[in-house]
């Protein structure tokens, strides 16, 4: 198996498209977006059902890629997470088909 980086970005739904644009521009091979149902942060407690505008909802983006590409995405993601509500974390993972990332 081969070592890659797994990027996980918890980002407010309204800024999701911006985050995806950044990942695409940084050359990451792909990503998958998961929905969320509730959450709590320093400034807010929210539940999906209680917000007709969906403006407090978050989404989780998972993107697996090689270290260099992830590094390239980080600068812009950092700026995004400064303007928008979001939590960004990265960890090491082992993958089977290293060439596809």
């Amino acid at each position: 198996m081969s070592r890659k980086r797994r990027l996980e970005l918890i980002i407010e739904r309204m800024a999701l498209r911006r985050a995806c644009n950044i990942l695409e521009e940084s050359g990451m091979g792909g990503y998958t977006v998961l929905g969320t149902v509730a959450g709590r942060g320093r400034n807010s407690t929210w539940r999906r059902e209680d917000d007709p505008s969906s403006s407090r909802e978050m989404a989780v983006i998972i993107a697996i890629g090689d270290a260099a590409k992830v590094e390239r995405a980080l600068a812009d993601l950092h700026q995004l997470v400064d303007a928008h509500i979001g939590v960004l974390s990265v960890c090491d993972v082992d993958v089977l088909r290293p060439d596809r990332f």
Partner: protein
Amino acid sequence: MAFDLAWNTIVSPVVLFFVLGLVAALARSDMSIPEDFAKGIAIYLMMAIGLKGGFEMSRSGLDAEVAAVMIAGIALSLVIPLIAFALLRFTTDLGRIDAAAAAAHYGSISIVTFIASTQALEWAEVESSGHLVAVAALMEAPAIVVALLLAGPRDSARVGVAGQSRGELVREVALNASVVVLIGALLVGWATGERGQAQVERFFLTPLQGVLCLFLLDMGLAAGRGLRRGREALRPATLAFGLYMPLVGAALGGGLASLLGLGVGDAALLMTLAASASYIAVPAAMRLALPEARPSIYLTLSLGVTFPFNLTLGIPAYVVVAGWIAG
């Protein structure tokens, strides 16, 4: 008479189910209506009110008054945010950006409040015009532009946020679900007229009030939870704004209606539009365009304070007052 009308509006299934949701949420019940179901119902409601307006317009045709009311609506949605901003800056401790964001909500409209108002008119057997739906759609967006100007020069506006794509805000504001569905359904109703009405009325018109009950139960839950969670974020002066601002808006709307010589129903609807505050389109647009503004302020105000006020006390009052000024 006025009292009867108000009483009948308040003691109706539609309003009582809203109150039920509100009370359940404040009592900390955990019940909820699935979000995806409620969103589907919201689309239905917008299609229904759009079609209704369109069918009505296909019967009554267009005249100069239509254009006049549309212009009045747009004017309201440009002026109200200025007043709201000034009031917030002078009477509360909100900063420029939070005040601008909240002001945008009051310049825009709540389509559910509008629909509830059309129902109240029906119970009171007061006629209203289909093109008010078009006015509602036209009032969705302009206040957002005003708010961005009020917010003034900001870092994020100057350099842009990473990942921003050209035209995303315009698309979000001009092509969001409620604009597309309201205008689209209005055109469909207008184009298909009587024949179209015969085909779809048993889904879109006959059961409308019942569907509204279900939807308002959900909205009551959302408003109650919004109020419960956001309460601490609001100082008394801000909270009070959420209660008197709709009256300011309604007064402006009523003034314009009487200037234009609108009928009772149309006057009541224009007052309702002016009085209502957005809690769907504008919050979403604010997250894109003014991410520094705090949702805990503007959502609590529009959804937790103004929306329940309009739905329970506001609408009957506007209908009664419209009867005085236009009757």
